[in-house]
């Protein structure tokens, strides 16, 4: 087998094993913590009989390991069980909301990625001079802000000082694409702010790392123009680290999205998760937590695979 293919297969296999381990932690680890699901649902006033009945109904008397495999098997078939609080099928509830989350995250990514790369290039090009210092200063500030703080600054600015947008992002079936886009404008701005800083700083570092290589000096000493140096010598080597940086930061979006959805009462996966953590609805929390973890791990695998494929040493073995 070609070494690149072998490494890629290994990396993906490792990712799948990790995902399995994560599912075990989310299911069994939670079981190991003190706390009783039945008690949590029925509250302190519950009688012993009703508790026992509920335990029986939820299958809580089975050994945890049996319930884990039953849960895993069902989950792999798209059946995530029903919510404890309202008995609604979790898979159905997630379907629509997941779409909304993806829509929000994609809009943010579509703006943040090109902007981060351009700003990263500018900062690297003017390394140590004022454009770099300005960009770095601003991004250092936004890195220090939690998502919800950034969100309320943006809300205050764009709904009160300059009343351009609505402070809540309501989406419902039947909205046109443009209506949706207008509705998510504010949360998208916030997400871009949050993810842009990391992405841009790492892009800048990746470019600088390549630009300091000896082969860039060689290219300069060949009398090539700055554009030729960047395009023919820096770019082919910088593309892999940049793509990898971008993907890793898209994984940050996964977390950012949870908080931002709550701020804007945006009816999607993150909001759904937080609601049910508050209600201590374990099956929902496990299912949604698993989805977030899977997206996060999947993006990490993708970043690693691209790095492997882009490495000339691996692509052209001795």
């Amino acid at each position, binding site marked *: 087998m070609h070494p690149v293919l072998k490494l890629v297969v290994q990396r993906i296999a490792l990712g799948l094993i*990790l995902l399995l381990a994560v599912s075990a932690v989310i299911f069994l680890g939670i079981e190991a913590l003190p706390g009783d699901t039945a008690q949590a649902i029925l509250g302190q006033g519950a009688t012993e009989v009703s508790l026992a009945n509920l335990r029986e109904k939820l299958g809580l008397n089975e050994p945890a390991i049996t319930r884990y495999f039953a849960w895993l098997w069902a989950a792999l078939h798209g059946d995530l069980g029903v919510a404890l609080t309202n008995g609604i099928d979790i898979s159905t509830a997630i379907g629509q909301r997941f779409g909304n989350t993806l829509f929000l995250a994609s809009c943010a990514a579509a703006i943040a990625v090109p902007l981060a790369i351009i700003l990263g290039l500018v900062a690297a090009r003017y390394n140590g001079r004022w454009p770099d210092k300005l960009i770095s200063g601003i991004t250092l500030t936004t890195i220090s802000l939690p998502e919800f703080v950034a969100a309320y600054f943006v809300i205050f600015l764009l*709904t009160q000082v300059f009343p351009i947008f609505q402070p809540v992002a309501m989406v419902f079936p039947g909205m046109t694409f443009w209506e949706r886009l207008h509705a998510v404008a504010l949360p998208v701005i916030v997400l871009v702010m949050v993810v842009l800083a990391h992405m841009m700083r790492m892009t800048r570092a990746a470019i600088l790392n390549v630009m300091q290589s000896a082969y860039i000096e060689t290219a300069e000493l060949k009398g090539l123009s700055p554009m030729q140096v960047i395009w023919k010598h820096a770019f082919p080597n910088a593309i892999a680290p940049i793509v990898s940086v971008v993907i890793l930061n898209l994984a940050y979006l996964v977390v950012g999205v*949870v908080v931002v959805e709550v701020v804007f009462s945006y009816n999607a996966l993150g909001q759904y*998760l937080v609601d049910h953590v508050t209600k*201590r609805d374990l099956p929902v929390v496990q299912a949604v937590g698993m989805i977030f973890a899977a997206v996060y791990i999947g993006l990490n695998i993708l970043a690693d695979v691209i790095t492997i494929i882009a490495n000339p040493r691996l692509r052209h073995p001795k």
Partner: protein
Amino acid sequence: MKLPFSAVLGIFLTSSFLFMAVFAQFLAPYSISDPSGGVWEGPSATHWLGTDTIGRDIFSRLIYGGQITIFVALASSTLAFSLGAFLGFMAAVKGGWVEQVMSRLVDLVMAIPSLIVALVILSVLPLNLTVLILVIGLLDSTRVYRLSRAVAMDIAVMDYVEAAKLRGERQTWIIFREILPNALSPLVAEFGLRFIFAVLFISTLSFLGLGIQPPLTDWGGMVKENKDGLVYGKSAALMPALAIAALAISVNLVADWILSRTSSLKGGRGG
């Protein structure tokens, strides 16, 4: 040695915040829980930063909330730090299966975003200060573990560590006399970053309603209480938000400065 302006500013602000947190009881002009004015009053001579959703003095609550935020963040980052650094150093020096087991475990925890792990855990555990500190501290210790292990590994392969081994020195000497002094600066800077992370984390959890519970409050919780006012143009929610940002930025400035000194210190006292 001349301090850069950003470091002076960072150190001044950080120590002011710490001072405020320690002496909150003496500094706050009003009570934390009793209303002392009208609902959502603007800033005035009696209420410097105005009043909140049920008429409590925001400035006082900001001071009390800061105490909680800083206390929880400090406690959890101290926990994260002592645990992570200790295990990281041990992994680097011991190697073998001890290191393998710990590193794989850390990989596993870090494979899921911290917020998601925290949410999953907090859906079963009771919400009190101890639980919050433990959860944030343990989650964060994985990052400290990775860093201190990497730093210690870099130092452990140095010839002077080998020379100490060949001399017959014990492991405690090697860790405390050879490795630790050389790992200190990056770890101190890291402590600053971990502290910021803890501040942001506890604020976020409180904002989501899963952190500090009433009657106590922290800055994240205050944003949550007052967020509805924003729609009516009441800026009350922005005060705690500003406080979080200011604390995070000032600690960042200090950490940045320590980190920039690290490289120049590498070769000794810098001639």
